[in-house]
């Protein structure tokens, strides 16, 4: 691995500077659809992490055998295979959580973020680098889902991970499905605000 990127850098890039949800604004559907609790976020995060890591590694191993013209179908089929694996595993061992997440586990196959990482990273870099990059991106997605889920669960039902922490329900609105849009929108605005504030304090404009 004669590379200047260390594994830690690859992971932190996925979580912070290139966070799939807040920075790249990709794979928004589950972030809005089923982020009502922290637990949902963790479970779907694990599923995405699994698919991302394994597809990255698979493509990275076979990168010299894939003809450039059929690379996109190859990526799609690789992802579809790993999604099928995690779909069957979740359905068998966690039927309740699986029922809650509904169709979203199967829809991981259409997540733009996974194809994008394969196209931009895994088809060029070594196997171990691809592994760390996949891990970073998967963790970044999981962190995003958990943060949104944390706010919606805390503000909507006054609970965290199913434990009552506030003792009252501040704003029932946040548990409603359509609030997902508002929460994601407000959080994006918040990150923008930090960025603008930071730039101003540095006197950059």
């Amino acid at each position, binding site marked *: 691995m004669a590379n200047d990127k260390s594994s830690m850098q690859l992971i932190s890039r996925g979580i912070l500077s290139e966070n799939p949800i807040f920075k790249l604004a990709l794979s*928004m559907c589950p972030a809005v659809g089923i982020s009502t609790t922290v637990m949902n976020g963790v479970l779907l995060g694990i599923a995405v992490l699994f698919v991302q890591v394994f597809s990255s590694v698979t493509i990275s191993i076979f990168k010299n055998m894939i003809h450039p013209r059929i690379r996109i179908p190859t990526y799609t089929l690789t992802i579809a295979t790993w999604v099928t694996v995690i779909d069957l595993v979740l359905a068998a061992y966690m039927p309740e959580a699986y029922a809650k997440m509904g169709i979203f586990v199967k829809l991981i196959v259409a997540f*733009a973020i996974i194809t994008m990482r394969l196209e931009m990273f895994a088809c060029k870099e070594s196997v171990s680098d691809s592994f760390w990059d996949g891990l970073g991106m998967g963790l970044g997605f999981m962190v995003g889902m958990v943060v949104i889920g944390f706010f919606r669960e805390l503000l909507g039902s006054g609970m965290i991970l199913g434990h009552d922490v506030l003792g009252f329900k501040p704003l029932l609105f946040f548990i409603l499905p359509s609030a997902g849009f508002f929460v994601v929108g407000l959080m994006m605005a918040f990150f923008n605000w930090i960025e603008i504030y930071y730039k101003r304090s540095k006197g950059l404009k």
Partner: protein
Amino acid sequence: MMTLGNIKSIVFIALVALLVPIFVQAEGLIVDQTFHGDKEIVVTFAGSVDKAVVENVKNYTVFEEPDPDIRLKMSSAILGVDGKSATLVFAEPLNTIETHVVSIEGLNGEEKTVFTVSKSYLGYLFGILISALLINNFVFTKYLGLCVFFGTSKKKETAKGMGVVFTLVTVASATMSWFFYNYILVPFDLNFLQIVVFIGLTSLTVQAVDTVLRKVNPVLFNSFGVFLVLVIANCVIIAVPLILANNHYNLFETLMLALGAGGGFLLALYLMSSVSERMQLADIPPTFKGLPISFIVAGQFAMAFLGFSGLQLF
């Protein structure tokens, strides 16, 4: 070459073919039978009937076609003033989507008169379309296809192009997925391959439409070709085959679901782009510029679409 007139006549024939069974059904003693509200069935007889027989609840056996063992409980039967129509009132709301089988004993001396009550099939199909279009709109109530939704809803022109191309591809790929699912996956017990097969078929459809359009109509390709690449990145297009496989839809229902999904996406895009065009003139705080404000607007649309829940036309 298929002209507009041709298409019109084909659609007309298809509609007539769908309607024919409704007229054929009426025969014998019973002229007409319909659901009335969610607790009543109204029966019209050919001639006058014996009031004592009709109004005796014990003479009836009613069940849903799939479960003949579960008898539905009736609270009363009332013969109308004209002596020809009866209202059967049930204790609990009926599941009007299912076909109900009603049999009456001793009516006009006959040992048993059996007839079925069902909603008009056309109405049921239309219900699927309306449900996918408004009540369960894929963008605003199921939260699917958001990446492409936020990407292509800046201008009305783009929104229209994307929506139309997407609808066409959805219908084509859903039809193909239906044939594959019913004639290959189910007979050979390959259900676990659903995801792989459906995503493969979808990519194939997109590629095929791309190639055909490029050769047949280059002008159309130039204006719509860009959207074809985006279609494959949309989760709605893979959600439609998964839903039809889950619910065991037949071909007509599949077509309606695909049309509703595509039309719903077109509707959502058009609404959003109309707002986006006006937002360009508005004074938005710098922190909310771009995606954040789009999300807030989409949230408001989602709340408005909640109002469609419970909408029932037939």
